[in-house]
């Protein structure tokens, strides 16, 4: 069944949108990533104007994350204190990111920079996670005990705070910095930032994987709510009809994803996320390297983004 979207001004298949939302929702619940880095390109692909896709993607991710967080709250796998610290950093970072984004836009080529950002970050993060997870799996097979948490420079910083749910007693500075960095990237790349946040929490902060997912989702809700409001008031590009269809699929998917996620081993979860990140990275890199079938593209408006 076709439906005409009032803001996007295109007609698309309802089942396609439901399915798309569902797939992204499953990923979101399983890995604690918002799924924006997959949803947004998929929306472009089915013919939604980029500006609408970015803005509405944020709305859908917020909904799926909210659904996911509720599921995680019941299992007590959300570190609310850590989430709040990350969020404070995230909002500051998002503000900085918007300023940086507008500066890049004035220079032109913001499109390319966003894509290069994606390829670089996804490649590095995906690669590191993949190698690390393989090593962890091999260690558990050999029966070697997992290494104890290292007490590196992170633990020598001042302003220590106890994060009970994560079992950590560390300085608030590293999570704040992580929050700011993710916020900046989120604003520039138009995503919730979960795919950067999750590895950062695991490897930089040393949080247990089970808690990481819920905490990441908690933080994403607020970042994407902020983004939705910003897009709705400045660019008028949030399409409620599109969002509703995506999120009906998305919230159901998120619940299923959470169920799958809690039944999987942490190493397996990480290796699958790593593979997914690498696949998206490879696709984006190919787009930049291969000769496109159409060299020209249309952007509505004179000099529009």
């Amino acid at each position: 069944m076709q439906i005409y979207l009032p803001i996007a001004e295109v007609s698309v298949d309802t089942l396609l949108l439901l399915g798309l939302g569902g797939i992204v929702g499953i990923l979101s619940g399983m890995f604690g990533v918002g799924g924006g880095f997959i949803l947004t390109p998929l929306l472009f692909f089915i013919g939604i104007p980029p500006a609408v896709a970015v803005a509405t993607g944020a709305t859908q991710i917020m909904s799926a994350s909210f659904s996911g967080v509720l599921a995680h709250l019941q299992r007590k796998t959300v570190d609310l204190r850590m989430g709040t610290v990350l969020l404070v950093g995230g909002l500051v970072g998002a503000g900085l990111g918007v300023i940086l984004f507008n500066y890049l836009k004035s220079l032109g080529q913001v499109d390319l920079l966003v894509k290069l950002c994606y390829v670089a970050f996804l490649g590095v993060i995906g690669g590191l996670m993949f190698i690390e997870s393989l090593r962890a799996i091999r260690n558990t097979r050999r029966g070697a005990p997992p290494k104890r948490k290292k007490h590196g420079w992170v633990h020598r910083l001042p302003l220590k705070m106890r994060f009970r749910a994560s079992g950590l007693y560390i300085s608030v500075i590293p999570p704040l910095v992580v929050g700011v960095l993710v916020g900046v990237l989120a604003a520039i790349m138009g995503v919730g930032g979960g795919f950067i946040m999750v590895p950062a929490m695991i490897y930089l902060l040393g949080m247990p994987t089970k808690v990481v997912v819920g905490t990441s989702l908690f933080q994403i809700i607020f970042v994407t709510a902020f983004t939705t409001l910003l897009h709705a008031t400045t660019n008028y590009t949030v399409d409620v009809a599109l969002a509703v269809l995506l999120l009906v699929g998305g919230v159901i998917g998120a619940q299923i994803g959470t169920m799958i996620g809690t039944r999987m081993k942490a190493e397996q979860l990480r290796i699958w996320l790593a593979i997914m990140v690498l696949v998206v990275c490879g696709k984006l890199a190919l787009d930049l390297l291969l000769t496109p079938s159409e060299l020209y593209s249309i952007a509505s408006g004179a000099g529009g983004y």
Partner: protein
Amino acid sequence: MLRLALLLWLAALPLRAEEVVLGLSQDRVAITATFEGSDILIFGAVKREAPIPDIPLDVVITVAGPSLPVSVRRKERVLGIWVNTDTVALESAPTFYAVATSGPLDQVLSNTEDLRHRVSIPRAIRSVGAASMAEDVESFTDALIRIRERTNAYQLLENSVALDEQTLFRTAISLPANLTEGAYQTRIFLTREGRVVAQLKTVIDVHKVGLERWLYALSRQQPLLYGLMSIAIAIAAGWGASAAFQVLRRG
């Protein structure tokens, strides 16, 4: 002076000898939530006082959606990666444009008349004074036409106007589902040997109705309220799904 005026009147006379009488299957298109595009039947007759001239008559019909500025970008390989390099900003290009003719366009309409009335697709795009970084503006307008033809936004329908007895004509133009709201200018030209002998303009009104209308208006007039509403819907859906799954798990 009077003689000159008389001469001009006589010269203009053949233009008035034939007139278009027009009918449309619908003069307004309502975009609803389940809008899947629409076929518009354009039909009419040629009204004339004098007998039919020997030179055969041809009909050209155009339908143009609202015009908007457009920029077209071209990619080029820089250091191994494909980058948008040149941009051409076109002053205005119709969001939808269809030309239907009763014969090959270059035969039923001369170049001069095409230039004057902006009938063919390239002419309908205003590229004069295009702000550009590129020298070959034409390849950019060609690309615009090529891309929009692929999505049926631009249609050249040669030989699709049926003309009976040089008097009755009809054609069907299918509007795709991805329509922009606005007044769709519809023009009918009667031509002989490539010259326009009569023309008529009318408007097909395309607009959103019902929920579509309401949402669109709200998003423009009360953006903050609209944004908050979107957030509320998203939160409610997330909570609803979570609650529903809990019930399912218990049950």
